[in-house]
Protein backbone atom coordinates (compact mmCIF):
# COMPACT_ATOMS: atom_id res chain seq x y z
CA UNK A 1 0.00 0.00 0.00
CA UNK A 2 2.69 2.40 1.07
CA UNK A 3 4.91 1.33 -1.82
CA UNK A 4 2.18 1.85 -4.44
CA UNK A 5 1.48 5.24 -3.00
CA UNK A 6 5.15 6.14 -3.27
CA UNK A 7 5.32 4.90 -6.83
CA UNK A 8 2.24 6.87 -7.79
CA UNK A 9 3.77 9.97 -6.26
CA UNK A 10 7.00 9.40 -8.15
CA UNK A 11 5.18 8.99 -11.47
CA UNK A 12 3.15 12.12 -10.91
CA UNK A 13 6.27 14.02 -9.89
CA UNK A 14 8.18 12.80 -12.93
CA UNK A 15 5.40 13.67 -15.35
CA UNK A 16 4.92 17.03 -13.68
CA UNK A 17 8.60 17.82 -14.04
CA UNK A 18 8.65 16.81 -17.69
CA UNK A 19 5.61 18.92 -18.47
CA UNK A 20 7.05 21.87 -16.55
CA UNK A 21 10.14 21.72 -18.71
CA UNK A 22 8.11 21.35 -21.88
CA UNK A 23 6.44 24.63 -20.92
CA UNK A 24 9.72 26.31 -19.99
CA UNK A 25 11.25 25.17 -23.27
CA UNK A 26 8.41 26.38 -25.42
CA UNK A 27 7.19 29.50 -23.65
CA UNK A 28 9.91 31.95 -24.77
CA UNK A 29 9.53 30.77 -28.35
CA UNK A 30 5.78 31.17 -28.09
CA UNK A 31 6.27 34.61 -26.56
CA UNK A 32 8.49 35.63 -29.45
CA UNK A 33 5.84 34.61 -32.00
CA UNK A 34 2.94 36.34 -30.29
CA UNK A 35 4.95 39.46 -29.53
CA UNK A 36 5.69 39.87 -33.21
CA UNK A 37 1.95 40.11 -33.90
CA UNK A 38 0.89 42.46 -31.13
CA UNK A 39 0.56 46.20 -30.95
CA UNK A 40 2.47 48.23 -28.38
CA UNK A 41 -0.61 48.69 -26.25
CA UNK A 42 -1.60 45.05 -26.28
CA UNK A 43 1.92 44.04 -25.33
CA UNK A 44 1.55 45.53 -21.89
CA UNK A 45 -2.08 44.62 -21.17
CA UNK A 46 -2.06 41.14 -22.56
CA UNK A 47 1.22 39.34 -22.00
CA UNK A 48 0.40 35.65 -22.22
CA UNK A 49 -2.52 35.29 -24.59
CA UNK A 50 -2.62 35.17 -28.36
CA UNK A 51 -2.93 38.56 -30.04
CA UNK A 52 -6.49 39.84 -30.52
CA UNK A 53 -5.71 41.54 -33.82
CA UNK A 54 -2.64 39.85 -35.27
CA UNK A 55 -0.54 42.47 -37.01
CA UNK A 56 0.75 40.33 -39.86
CA UNK A 57 1.84 43.54 -41.50
CA UNK A 58 4.91 43.58 -39.28
CA UNK A 59 6.51 40.97 -41.50
CA UNK A 60 6.43 42.77 -44.84
CA UNK A 61 7.30 45.93 -42.95
CA UNK A 62 10.50 44.48 -41.53
CA UNK A 63 11.41 42.33 -44.49
CA UNK A 64 10.76 44.72 -47.34
CA UNK A 65 10.41 48.29 -46.15
CA UNK A 66 13.27 47.98 -43.73
CA UNK A 67 15.17 45.76 -46.18
CA UNK A 68 15.71 42.86 -43.82
CA UNK A 69 15.40 40.42 -46.69
CA UNK A 70 19.01 41.35 -47.36
CA UNK A 71 20.12 40.10 -43.95
CA UNK A 72 18.21 36.88 -44.60
CA UNK A 73 20.11 36.42 -47.86
CA UNK A 74 23.39 37.30 -46.16
CA UNK A 75 22.79 34.74 -43.44
CA UNK A 76 21.78 32.05 -45.92
CA UNK A 77 24.86 32.71 -48.04
CA UNK A 78 27.17 32.83 -45.03
CA UNK A 79 25.84 29.70 -43.33
CA UNK A 80 25.61 27.83 -46.64
CA UNK A 81 29.13 28.68 -47.78
CA UNK A 82 30.69 27.99 -44.40
CA UNK A 83 28.86 24.66 -44.15
CA UNK A 84 29.92 23.47 -47.59
CA UNK A 85 33.57 24.43 -47.23
CA UNK A 86 33.73 22.95 -43.73
CA UNK A 87 32.33 19.65 -44.96
CA UNK A 88 34.75 19.46 -47.89
CA UNK A 89 37.81 20.23 -45.76
CA UNK A 90 36.63 17.94 -42.95
CA UNK A 91 36.00 14.99 -45.26
CA UNK A 92 39.38 15.35 -46.93
CA UNK A 93 41.25 15.51 -43.64
CA UNK A 94 39.14 12.82 -41.97
CA UNK A 95 39.84 10.51 -44.91
CA UNK A 96 43.57 10.78 -44.30
CA UNK A 97 43.18 10.22 -40.55
CA UNK A 98 40.79 7.30 -40.90
CA UNK A 99 42.25 5.38 -43.82
CA UNK A 100 45.98 5.96 -43.61
CA UNK A 101 48.68 5.29 -41.09
CA UNK A 102 51.37 7.88 -41.69
CA UNK A 103 54.22 9.60 -39.95
CA UNK A 104 52.87 12.36 -37.72
CA UNK A 105 49.30 11.07 -37.69
CA UNK A 106 48.96 11.17 -33.90
CA UNK A 107 50.57 14.58 -33.61
CA UNK A 108 48.45 16.14 -36.33
CA UNK A 109 45.28 14.70 -34.83
CA UNK A 110 46.13 16.17 -31.44
CA UNK A 111 46.78 19.47 -33.19
CA UNK A 112 43.31 19.30 -34.69
CA UNK A 113 41.80 18.48 -31.29
CA UNK A 114 43.53 21.53 -29.79
CA UNK A 115 41.40 23.53 -32.22
CA UNK A 116 38.33 22.25 -30.34
CA UNK A 117 39.41 24.12 -27.24
CA UNK A 118 40.27 27.37 -28.98
CA UNK A 119 37.55 29.94 -28.67
CA UNK A 120 36.78 32.90 -30.87
CA UNK A 121 37.79 35.10 -27.94
CA UNK A 122 41.37 33.91 -28.02
CA UNK A 123 41.86 34.59 -31.70
CA UNK A 124 39.70 37.69 -32.19
CA UNK A 125 42.44 40.30 -32.19
CA UNK A 126 44.90 38.63 -34.62
CA UNK A 127 42.05 37.55 -36.88
CA UNK A 128 40.80 41.11 -36.97
CA UNK A 129 44.28 42.39 -37.81
CA UNK A 130 44.73 39.73 -40.47
CA UNK A 131 41.43 40.63 -42.11
CA UNK A 132 42.28 44.28 -41.92
CA UNK A 133 45.65 43.84 -43.58
CA UNK A 134 44.07 41.75 -46.36
CA UNK A 135 41.34 44.33 -46.79
CA UNK A 136 38.66 41.80 -45.94
CA UNK A 137 36.85 43.63 -43.14
CA UNK A 138 33.29 44.29 -44.21
CA UNK A 139 33.37 41.70 -46.95
CA UNK A 140 31.58 38.44 -47.48
CA UNK A 141 34.88 36.56 -47.78
CA UNK A 142 36.03 38.15 -44.54
CA UNK A 143 32.94 36.81 -42.78
CA UNK A 144 33.33 33.32 -44.22
CA UNK A 145 37.02 32.65 -43.68
CA UNK A 146 37.39 32.91 -39.88
CA UNK A 147 33.96 31.39 -39.29
CA UNK A 148 35.07 28.14 -40.94
CA UNK A 149 38.05 27.95 -38.60
CA UNK A 150 35.72 27.78 -35.58
CA UNK A 151 33.93 24.63 -36.71
CA UNK A 152 36.63 22.92 -38.72
CA UNK A 153 38.22 21.00 -35.84
CA UNK A 154 34.84 19.70 -34.79
CA UNK A 155 34.07 18.71 -38.37
CA UNK A 156 37.33 16.83 -38.81
CA UNK A 157 36.85 15.12 -35.47
CA UNK A 158 33.27 14.11 -36.26
CA UNK A 159 34.03 12.83 -39.76
CA UNK A 160 37.12 10.96 -38.57
CA UNK A 161 35.09 9.13 -35.93
CA UNK A 162 32.54 8.25 -38.56
CA UNK A 163 35.00 7.22 -41.26
CA UNK A 164 36.70 5.00 -38.69
CA UNK A 165 33.41 3.18 -38.27
CA UNK A 166 33.27 2.29 -41.94
CA UNK A 167 34.22 -1.40 -42.00
CA UNK A 168 37.84 -1.92 -42.92
CA UNK A 169 36.82 -4.69 -45.33
CA UNK A 170 34.78 -2.20 -47.31
CA UNK A 171 37.81 0.03 -47.78
CA UNK A 172 39.92 -2.97 -48.77
CA UNK A 173 37.28 -4.20 -51.20
CA UNK A 174 37.19 -0.80 -52.86
CA UNK A 175 40.97 -0.76 -53.15
CA UNK A 176 40.91 -4.17 -54.80
CA UNK A 177 38.12 -3.02 -57.08
CA UNK A 178 40.54 -0.40 -58.30
CA UNK A 179 39.62 2.81 -56.49
CA UNK A 180 42.11 5.64 -56.33
CA UNK A 181 42.15 7.70 -53.13
CA UNK A 182 39.76 10.26 -54.49
CA UNK A 183 37.43 7.59 -55.88
CA UNK A 184 37.48 5.75 -52.58
CA UNK A 185 36.52 8.95 -50.79
CA UNK A 186 33.90 10.16 -53.23
CA UNK A 187 32.31 6.88 -54.31
CA UNK A 188 32.50 4.84 -51.11
CA UNK A 189 33.30 6.78 -47.93
CA UNK A 190 31.12 9.80 -48.62
CA UNK A 191 28.02 7.93 -49.85
CA UNK A 192 28.28 5.51 -46.93
CA UNK A 193 28.63 8.42 -44.50
CA UNK A 194 25.71 10.51 -45.71
CA UNK A 195 24.03 10.42 -42.27
CA UNK A 196 27.16 11.78 -40.59
CA UNK A 197 27.66 14.41 -43.25
CA UNK A 198 24.03 15.42 -42.84
CA UNK A 199 24.54 15.69 -39.09
CA UNK A 200 27.64 17.81 -39.53
CA UNK A 201 25.86 19.97 -42.09
CA UNK A 202 22.88 20.85 -39.89
CA UNK A 203 25.05 21.52 -36.83
CA UNK A 204 27.49 23.66 -38.78
CA UNK A 205 24.64 25.53 -40.46
CA UNK A 206 22.98 26.18 -37.10
CA UNK A 207 26.20 27.40 -35.51
CA UNK A 208 26.99 29.75 -38.33
CA UNK A 209 23.43 31.00 -38.64
CA UNK A 210 23.37 31.80 -34.92
CA UNK A 211 26.94 33.06 -34.74
CA UNK A 212 27.40 36.58 -33.48
CA UNK A 213 30.86 37.32 -32.13
CA UNK A 214 32.92 37.44 -35.33
CA UNK A 215 30.18 38.93 -37.54
CA UNK A 216 29.66 41.68 -34.96
CA UNK A 217 33.27 42.74 -35.39
CA UNK A 218 33.68 42.04 -39.09
CA UNK A 219 30.40 43.25 -40.58
CA UNK A 220 29.75 46.81 -39.55
CA UNK A 221 28.23 47.80 -42.89
CA UNK A 222 24.51 47.26 -42.83
CA UNK A 223 24.21 45.66 -46.26
CA UNK A 224 26.66 42.91 -45.23
CA UNK A 225 25.22 42.07 -41.83
CA UNK A 226 23.88 38.59 -41.23
CA UNK A 227 20.64 38.37 -39.24
CA UNK A 228 22.24 38.04 -35.81
CA UNK A 229 24.12 41.33 -36.13
CA UNK A 230 21.29 42.98 -38.05
CA UNK A 231 18.86 42.27 -35.21
CA UNK A 232 21.14 43.81 -32.61
CA UNK A 233 21.72 46.76 -34.92
CA UNK A 234 17.96 47.09 -35.36
CA UNK A 235 17.44 46.90 -31.63
CA UNK A 236 19.96 49.64 -31.08
CA UNK A 237 17.88 51.94 -33.22
CA UNK A 238 14.35 50.83 -32.30
CA UNK A 239 14.74 49.54 -28.77
CA UNK A 240 11.16 50.04 -27.81
CA UNK A 241 9.57 48.68 -30.95
CA UNK A 242 9.35 45.29 -29.28
CA UNK A 243 6.95 43.90 -31.85
CA UNK A 244 9.33 44.75 -34.70
CA UNK A 245 12.32 43.30 -32.85
CA UNK A 246 10.23 40.18 -32.21
CA UNK A 247 9.41 40.08 -35.92
CA UNK A 248 13.09 40.10 -36.85
CA UNK A 249 13.69 37.35 -34.29
CA UNK A 250 10.94 35.21 -35.77
CA UNK A 251 12.36 35.80 -39.24
CA UNK A 252 15.71 34.59 -37.99
CA UNK A 253 14.27 31.61 -36.15
CA UNK A 254 11.80 30.20 -38.67
CA UNK A 255 14.42 28.79 -41.09
CA UNK A 256 16.15 27.07 -38.17
CA UNK A 257 12.84 25.76 -36.88
CA UNK A 258 12.03 24.28 -40.29
CA UNK A 259 15.51 22.79 -40.55
CA UNK A 260 15.19 21.41 -37.03
CA UNK A 261 11.82 19.81 -37.61
CA UNK A 262 12.91 18.29 -40.92
CA UNK A 263 16.25 16.96 -39.75
CA UNK A 264 15.58 15.86 -36.17
CA UNK A 265 17.68 12.74 -36.46
CA UNK A 266 20.64 14.51 -38.00
CA UNK A 267 20.66 17.04 -35.18
CA UNK A 268 20.53 14.33 -32.60
CA UNK A 269 23.28 12.38 -34.28
CA UNK A 270 25.50 15.42 -34.71
CA UNK A 271 25.20 16.49 -31.09
CA UNK A 272 25.62 13.08 -29.52
CA UNK A 273 28.29 11.77 -31.89
CA UNK A 274 30.69 14.44 -30.73
CA UNK A 275 30.10 13.44 -27.13
CA UNK A 276 30.34 9.69 -27.41
CA UNK A 277 33.98 9.38 -28.35
Amino acid sequence: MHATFNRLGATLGANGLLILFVIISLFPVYLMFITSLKSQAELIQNVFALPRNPKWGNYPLVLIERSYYRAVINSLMLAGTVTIITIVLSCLAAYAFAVYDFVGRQLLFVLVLVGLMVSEVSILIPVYMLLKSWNLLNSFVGLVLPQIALGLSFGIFLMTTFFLQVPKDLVDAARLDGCTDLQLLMRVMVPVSIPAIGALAVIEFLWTWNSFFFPLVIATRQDLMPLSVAIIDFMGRFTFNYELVATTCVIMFVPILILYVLTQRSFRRGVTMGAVK
Partner: protein
Amino acid sequence: MSGPAERVVVKGVEKSFGRTQVLKGVDLEIDPREFVILLGPSGCGKTTLLRIIAGLERSDAGEIRIGERRVDGLEPKERDVAMVFQSYALYPHMNVFDNQSFSLRLRRMARTEIRDRVERAAQTLGLEKLLDRYPRQLSGGQRQRVSMGRAIVRSPKVFLFDEPLSNLDAQLRVHMRGEIKSLHHQLGTTSIYVTHDQIEAMTMGDRIVVMNGGIIEQIGSPLEVFDRPKNRFVAGFVGSPAMNFIDGTLVGTSSGTAFRTTDGRTVPLGPSAPPPGPAVTAGIRPHHLRLDPTGPIRGAAIDVQPTGVETIILCRWNSRDLLAQTGERIRAAAGEQLGFSVDPANIHLFDGTSGERLAA
Protein backbone atom coordinates in the same frame (compact mmCIF):
# COMPACT_ATOMS: atom_id res chain seq x y z
CA MET B 1 33.54 -18.52 -68.44
CA SER B 2 37.13 -19.48 -67.83
CA GLY B 3 39.53 -16.97 -66.40
CA PRO B 4 43.27 -16.69 -66.85
CA ALA B 5 45.21 -18.97 -64.57
CA GLU B 6 48.48 -17.85 -63.15
CA ARG B 7 51.17 -19.18 -60.88
CA VAL B 8 51.61 -17.38 -57.54
CA VAL B 9 55.02 -17.38 -55.92
CA VAL B 10 55.76 -16.15 -52.43
CA LYS B 11 59.43 -15.98 -51.50
CA GLY B 12 60.91 -15.11 -48.13
CA VAL B 13 58.08 -12.85 -47.06
CA GLU B 14 58.45 -11.23 -43.65
CA LYS B 15 56.15 -8.86 -41.84
CA SER B 16 56.11 -7.23 -38.45
CA PHE B 17 53.48 -5.11 -36.75
CA GLY B 18 55.38 -3.01 -34.27
CA ARG B 19 57.58 -5.45 -32.39
CA THR B 20 55.63 -8.60 -33.15
CA GLN B 21 56.79 -10.51 -36.17
CA VAL B 22 53.75 -12.13 -37.74
CA LEU B 23 55.45 -13.62 -40.79
CA LYS B 24 58.94 -15.01 -40.35
CA GLY B 25 60.00 -15.80 -43.87
CA VAL B 26 57.31 -17.58 -45.83
CA ASP B 27 57.95 -19.48 -49.09
CA LEU B 28 55.08 -20.82 -51.12
CA GLU B 29 54.49 -21.79 -54.75
CA ILE B 30 50.98 -22.12 -56.04
CA ASP B 31 50.39 -23.71 -59.42
CA PRO B 32 48.04 -22.28 -62.01
CA ARG B 33 44.41 -23.38 -61.46
CA GLU B 34 45.26 -24.69 -58.01
CA PHE B 35 42.98 -24.21 -54.99
CA VAL B 36 45.18 -23.74 -51.96
CA ILE B 37 44.02 -23.45 -48.36
CA LEU B 38 45.88 -21.43 -45.76
CA LEU B 39 45.01 -23.12 -42.49
CA GLY B 40 46.08 -22.24 -38.98
CA PRO B 41 45.00 -20.96 -35.60
CA SER B 42 44.17 -17.29 -35.23
CA GLY B 43 47.26 -15.15 -35.13
CA CYS B 44 49.30 -17.57 -37.23
CA GLY B 45 49.74 -15.02 -40.02
CA LYS B 46 47.50 -16.60 -42.64
CA THR B 47 45.30 -13.55 -43.10
CA THR B 48 48.32 -11.26 -43.15
CA LEU B 49 49.88 -13.39 -45.88
CA LEU B 50 46.67 -13.19 -47.89
CA ARG B 51 46.50 -9.43 -47.47
CA ILE B 52 50.12 -9.10 -48.53
CA ILE B 53 49.38 -11.08 -51.68
CA ALA B 54 46.38 -8.78 -52.27
CA GLY B 55 48.53 -5.69 -51.76
CA LEU B 56 46.47 -4.46 -48.82
CA GLU B 57 49.51 -4.85 -46.60
CA ARG B 58 53.16 -4.30 -47.42
CA SER B 59 55.71 -6.96 -46.61
CA ASP B 60 58.94 -5.96 -44.90
CA ALA B 61 61.01 -8.37 -46.96
CA GLY B 62 60.62 -10.97 -49.70
CA GLU B 63 58.88 -11.00 -53.03
CA ILE B 64 55.52 -11.90 -54.50
CA ARG B 65 55.01 -12.93 -58.10
CA ILE B 66 51.76 -13.41 -59.92
CA GLY B 67 52.48 -15.07 -63.22
CA GLU B 68 55.75 -13.68 -64.51
CA ARG B 69 55.20 -10.32 -62.88
CA ARG B 70 56.68 -9.24 -59.58
CA VAL B 71 53.85 -7.50 -57.77
CA ASP B 72 55.09 -6.53 -54.31
CA GLY B 73 55.28 -2.76 -54.40
CA LEU B 74 52.29 -2.57 -56.71
CA GLU B 75 48.95 -1.15 -55.62
CA PRO B 76 46.17 -3.69 -55.09
CA LYS B 77 44.39 -2.57 -58.23
CA GLU B 78 47.48 -3.13 -60.34
CA ARG B 79 47.75 -6.77 -59.27
CA ASP B 80 44.56 -8.01 -60.89
CA VAL B 81 43.42 -10.04 -57.91
CA ALA B 82 39.93 -10.23 -56.43
CA MET B 83 39.04 -10.95 -52.85
CA VAL B 84 36.01 -12.29 -51.03
CA PHE B 85 35.75 -11.04 -47.46
CA GLN B 86 34.40 -12.64 -44.32
CA SER B 87 32.05 -9.69 -43.83
CA TYR B 88 31.23 -9.72 -47.59
CA ALA B 89 32.14 -5.99 -47.67
CA LEU B 90 29.31 -5.13 -50.05
CA TYR B 91 28.82 -1.43 -50.70
CA PRO B 92 25.64 -0.67 -48.75
CA HIS B 93 24.70 2.26 -50.98
CA MET B 94 24.83 0.29 -54.22
CA ASN B 95 22.45 -2.36 -55.50
CA VAL B 96 23.64 -5.79 -56.53
CA PHE B 97 24.30 -4.78 -60.11
CA ASP B 98 26.30 -1.73 -59.08
CA ASN B 99 28.20 -3.71 -56.47
CA GLN B 100 29.26 -6.23 -59.06
CA SER B 101 30.01 -3.75 -61.78
CA PHE B 102 31.84 -1.20 -59.61
CA SER B 103 35.32 -2.41 -60.50
CA LEU B 104 34.45 -2.58 -64.19
CA ARG B 105 33.02 0.93 -64.14
CA LEU B 106 36.15 2.20 -62.46
CA ARG B 107 38.09 0.77 -65.41
CA ARG B 108 35.76 2.52 -67.81
CA MET B 109 34.77 -0.70 -69.49
CA ALA B 110 32.12 -0.39 -72.20
CA ARG B 111 28.63 -0.43 -70.81
CA THR B 112 27.45 -3.36 -72.91
CA GLU B 113 30.45 -5.40 -71.86
CA ILE B 114 29.73 -4.60 -68.20
CA ARG B 115 26.12 -5.66 -68.53
CA ASP B 116 27.16 -8.82 -70.28
CA ARG B 117 29.68 -9.79 -67.62
CA VAL B 118 27.43 -9.02 -64.66
CA GLU B 119 24.60 -10.99 -66.20
CA ARG B 120 26.80 -13.97 -66.86
CA ALA B 121 28.09 -13.87 -63.29
CA ALA B 122 24.56 -13.52 -61.99
CA GLN B 123 23.56 -16.55 -63.98
CA THR B 124 26.42 -18.60 -62.65
CA LEU B 125 25.50 -17.67 -59.10
CA GLY B 126 21.72 -17.59 -59.40
CA LEU B 127 21.45 -13.88 -58.74
CA GLU B 128 19.49 -12.88 -61.87
CA LYS B 129 16.44 -11.78 -59.93
CA LEU B 130 18.31 -9.85 -57.29
CA LEU B 131 20.25 -7.39 -59.43
CA ASP B 132 18.37 -4.29 -58.28
CA ARG B 133 18.19 -5.23 -54.61
CA TYR B 134 20.34 -3.56 -52.00
CA PRO B 135 22.62 -5.56 -49.69
CA ARG B 136 20.40 -4.93 -46.67
CA GLN B 137 17.54 -6.67 -48.50
CA LEU B 138 19.54 -9.87 -49.00
CA SER B 139 20.05 -12.92 -46.83
CA GLY B 140 23.49 -13.94 -45.63
CA GLY B 141 23.87 -16.55 -48.35
CA GLN B 142 22.78 -14.13 -51.06
CA ARG B 143 25.24 -11.51 -49.86
CA GLN B 144 27.93 -14.13 -49.95
CA ARG B 145 27.07 -14.89 -53.57
CA VAL B 146 27.06 -11.23 -54.53
CA SER B 147 30.47 -10.83 -53.03
CA MET B 148 31.69 -13.77 -55.11
CA GLY B 149 30.00 -12.33 -58.14
CA ARG B 150 31.89 -9.11 -57.58
CA ALA B 151 35.08 -11.13 -57.70
CA ILE B 152 34.30 -13.19 -60.79
CA VAL B 153 33.04 -10.40 -63.08
CA ARG B 154 36.57 -9.11 -63.21
CA SER B 155 38.06 -12.43 -64.39
CA PRO B 156 41.04 -11.78 -62.14
CA LYS B 157 44.26 -13.74 -62.25
CA VAL B 158 43.86 -14.89 -58.65
CA PHE B 159 40.96 -15.28 -56.24
CA LEU B 160 41.59 -14.60 -52.60
CA PHE B 161 39.13 -15.80 -49.97
CA ASP B 162 39.33 -14.57 -46.39
CA GLU B 163 37.23 -16.95 -44.28
CA PRO B 164 34.27 -16.30 -46.54
CA LEU B 165 31.93 -18.80 -44.92
CA SER B 166 32.42 -18.16 -41.25
CA ASN B 167 29.46 -15.78 -40.96
CA LEU B 168 27.01 -18.32 -42.38
CA ASP B 169 25.01 -20.86 -40.42
CA ALA B 170 26.11 -24.50 -40.51
CA GLN B 171 23.72 -25.70 -43.22
CA LEU B 172 24.40 -22.86 -45.61
CA ARG B 173 28.10 -23.31 -45.04
CA VAL B 174 27.97 -26.89 -46.33
CA HIS B 175 26.04 -25.72 -49.36
CA MET B 176 28.35 -22.80 -50.15
CA ARG B 177 31.38 -25.03 -49.80
CA GLY B 178 30.06 -27.06 -52.68
CA GLU B 179 29.22 -23.97 -54.68
CA ILE B 180 32.65 -22.43 -54.32
CA LYS B 181 34.23 -25.72 -55.31
CA SER B 182 32.13 -26.16 -58.42
CA LEU B 183 32.72 -22.51 -59.32
CA HIS B 184 36.42 -23.20 -59.15
CA HIS B 185 35.99 -26.22 -61.41
CA GLN B 186 34.17 -24.05 -63.93
CA LEU B 187 36.54 -21.09 -63.88
CA GLY B 188 39.83 -22.71 -63.00
CA THR B 189 41.19 -19.52 -61.51
CA THR B 190 44.08 -19.90 -59.12
CA SER B 191 42.59 -19.53 -55.64
CA ILE B 192 43.96 -18.93 -52.16
CA TYR B 193 41.54 -19.58 -49.35
CA VAL B 194 42.13 -18.67 -45.72
CA THR B 195 40.26 -20.57 -43.06
CA HIS B 196 40.57 -21.99 -39.60
CA ASP B 197 37.87 -24.54 -40.31
CA GLN B 198 39.13 -28.12 -40.59
CA ILE B 199 36.32 -29.35 -42.77
CA GLU B 200 36.63 -26.51 -45.26
CA ALA B 201 40.34 -27.18 -45.46
CA MET B 202 39.96 -30.93 -45.93
CA THR B 203 37.12 -30.81 -48.43
CA MET B 204 37.93 -27.82 -50.60
CA GLY B 205 41.63 -27.57 -51.15
CA ASP B 206 43.94 -29.19 -53.68
CA ARG B 207 46.64 -28.51 -51.13
CA ILE B 208 46.64 -27.30 -47.55
CA VAL B 209 49.25 -24.92 -46.18
CA VAL B 210 49.35 -25.27 -42.41
CA MET B 211 50.68 -22.16 -40.73
CA ASN B 212 51.62 -21.45 -37.14
CA GLY B 213 53.44 -18.58 -35.49
CA GLY B 214 54.37 -16.91 -38.75
CA ILE B 215 55.90 -19.91 -40.48
CA ILE B 216 54.62 -22.66 -42.72
CA GLU B 217 54.53 -25.97 -40.85
CA GLN B 218 53.52 -28.19 -43.73
CA ILE B 219 52.29 -28.07 -47.30
CA GLY B 220 50.50 -31.02 -48.80
CA SER B 221 47.28 -32.48 -50.08
CA PRO B 222 44.57 -32.74 -47.46
CA LEU B 223 45.02 -36.47 -46.93
CA GLU B 224 48.79 -36.19 -46.91
CA VAL B 225 48.59 -33.61 -44.16
CA PHE B 226 46.07 -35.68 -42.27
CA ASP B 227 47.81 -39.04 -42.67
CA ARG B 228 51.42 -37.94 -42.41
CA PRO B 229 51.58 -34.75 -40.36
CA LYS B 230 55.10 -33.42 -40.49
CA ASN B 231 55.24 -32.47 -36.84
CA ARG B 232 53.32 -32.44 -33.60
CA PHE B 233 51.70 -29.11 -34.29
CA VAL B 234 50.20 -30.18 -37.60
CA ALA B 235 49.17 -33.51 -36.11
CA GLY B 236 47.37 -31.78 -33.27
CA PHE B 237 45.85 -29.01 -35.33
CA VAL B 238 44.52 -30.93 -38.32
CA GLY B 239 41.73 -33.34 -37.57
CA SER B 240 38.75 -33.08 -35.30
CA PRO B 241 38.50 -34.32 -32.63
CA ALA B 242 42.20 -33.72 -32.15
CA MET B 243 44.86 -36.40 -32.04
CA ASN B 244 45.79 -37.95 -28.67
CA PHE B 245 49.37 -37.49 -27.58
CA ILE B 246 51.14 -39.89 -25.24
CA ASP B 247 54.64 -39.28 -23.90
CA GLY B 248 57.15 -42.10 -23.61
CA THR B 249 60.34 -43.60 -25.01
CA LEU B 250 61.25 -46.08 -27.72
CA VAL B 251 62.60 -49.34 -26.38
CA GLY B 252 63.90 -52.49 -28.01
CA THR B 253 61.95 -55.71 -27.45
CA SER B 254 62.26 -59.19 -28.85
CA SER B 255 59.71 -58.33 -31.56
CA GLY B 256 61.38 -55.05 -32.57
CA THR B 257 61.03 -51.47 -31.40
CA ALA B 258 58.13 -50.71 -29.04
CA PHE B 259 56.75 -47.60 -27.42
CA ARG B 260 57.02 -47.47 -23.63
CA THR B 261 54.73 -44.97 -21.96
CA THR B 262 55.91 -42.97 -18.98
CA ASP B 263 53.79 -45.15 -16.71
CA GLY B 264 55.46 -48.28 -17.98
CA ARG B 265 53.06 -49.77 -20.52
CA THR B 266 54.40 -51.12 -23.76
CA VAL B 267 52.72 -50.59 -27.09
CA PRO B 268 54.15 -52.64 -29.96
CA LEU B 269 55.17 -50.79 -33.10
CA GLY B 270 55.37 -52.04 -36.67
CA PRO B 271 58.49 -53.30 -38.43
CA SER B 272 59.28 -49.88 -39.93
CA ALA B 273 59.61 -48.23 -36.52
CA PRO B 274 62.79 -46.25 -35.87
CA PRO B 275 65.48 -47.68 -33.59
CA PRO B 276 65.17 -47.27 -29.81
CA GLY B 277 66.16 -43.85 -28.56
CA PRO B 278 65.30 -40.96 -26.34
CA ALA B 279 61.98 -39.37 -25.49
CA VAL B 280 59.21 -39.40 -28.09
CA THR B 281 55.56 -38.51 -28.28
CA ALA B 282 53.16 -40.95 -29.82
CA GLY B 283 50.11 -39.56 -31.59
CA ILE B 284 46.97 -41.62 -32.12
CA ARG B 285 43.83 -40.30 -33.76
CA PRO B 286 40.69 -40.95 -31.69
CA HIS B 287 39.08 -43.10 -34.36
CA HIS B 288 42.13 -45.37 -34.42
CA LEU B 289 41.69 -46.37 -30.80
CA ARG B 290 39.84 -49.69 -30.64
CA LEU B 291 38.08 -50.82 -27.48
CA ASP B 292 39.97 -53.90 -26.37
CA PRO B 293 39.82 -55.07 -22.75
CA THR B 294 43.28 -56.53 -23.09
CA GLY B 295 44.78 -53.58 -24.97
CA PRO B 296 47.92 -51.87 -23.69
CA ILE B 297 46.35 -48.44 -23.49
CA ARG B 298 44.12 -48.10 -20.47
CA GLY B 299 42.20 -45.29 -18.90
CA ALA B 300 39.38 -44.50 -16.53
CA ALA B 301 36.21 -43.42 -18.30
CA ILE B 302 35.11 -39.87 -17.53
CA ASP B 303 32.30 -39.44 -19.97
CA VAL B 304 30.71 -41.34 -22.82
CA GLN B 305 29.03 -39.15 -25.41
CA PRO B 306 26.79 -40.81 -27.98
CA THR B 307 26.30 -38.51 -30.98
CA GLY B 308 24.04 -40.95 -32.78
CA VAL B 309 26.44 -41.64 -35.60
CA GLU B 310 29.27 -42.59 -33.30
CA THR B 311 30.29 -42.64 -29.68
CA ILE B 312 32.98 -40.48 -28.19
CA ILE B 313 34.70 -41.82 -25.12
CA LEU B 314 36.63 -39.49 -22.87
CA CYS B 315 39.14 -41.16 -20.57
CA ARG B 316 41.73 -40.07 -18.09
CA TRP B 317 45.05 -41.76 -18.34
CA ASN B 318 48.29 -40.84 -16.69
CA SER B 319 46.81 -37.40 -15.84
CA ARG B 320 46.07 -36.79 -19.52
CA ASP B 321 42.84 -36.80 -21.48
CA LEU B 322 42.42 -39.59 -23.94
CA LEU B 323 39.72 -39.43 -26.57
CA ALA B 324 38.39 -42.40 -28.51
CA GLN B 325 35.86 -42.42 -31.28
CA THR B 326 33.99 -45.53 -32.27
CA GLY B 327 31.09 -46.48 -34.52
CA GLU B 328 29.74 -48.88 -31.91
CA ARG B 329 27.23 -47.81 -29.32
CA ILE B 330 28.72 -48.57 -25.98
CA ARG B 331 28.03 -47.74 -22.37
CA ALA B 332 30.50 -47.30 -19.57
CA ALA B 333 30.13 -46.04 -16.04
CA ALA B 334 32.27 -43.14 -14.93
CA GLY B 335 35.49 -44.41 -13.42
CA GLU B 336 35.30 -47.76 -15.20
CA GLN B 337 38.65 -48.94 -16.53
CA LEU B 338 38.68 -49.29 -20.30
CA GLY B 339 41.32 -50.80 -22.48
CA PHE B 340 42.26 -49.83 -26.03
CA SER B 341 44.51 -51.19 -28.65
CA VAL B 342 45.78 -49.59 -31.81
CA ASP B 343 47.12 -50.80 -35.13
CA PRO B 344 50.86 -50.03 -35.14
CA ALA B 345 50.48 -48.45 -38.60
CA ASN B 346 48.26 -45.79 -37.07
CA ILE B 347 50.73 -44.60 -34.48
CA HIS B 348 52.50 -41.35 -35.35
CA LEU B 349 55.81 -40.81 -33.63
CA PHE B 350 57.27 -37.36 -32.97
CA ASP B 351 60.58 -36.37 -31.52
CA GLY B 352 60.05 -35.53 -27.86
CA THR B 353 61.98 -32.26 -28.06
CA SER B 354 61.75 -30.96 -31.63
CA GLY B 355 58.27 -32.34 -32.28
CA GLU B 356 59.34 -33.42 -35.79
CA ARG B 357 57.90 -36.59 -37.25
CA LEU B 358 60.15 -39.62 -36.84
CA ALA B 359 60.53 -41.81 -39.87
CA ALA B 360 57.70 -44.31 -39.68
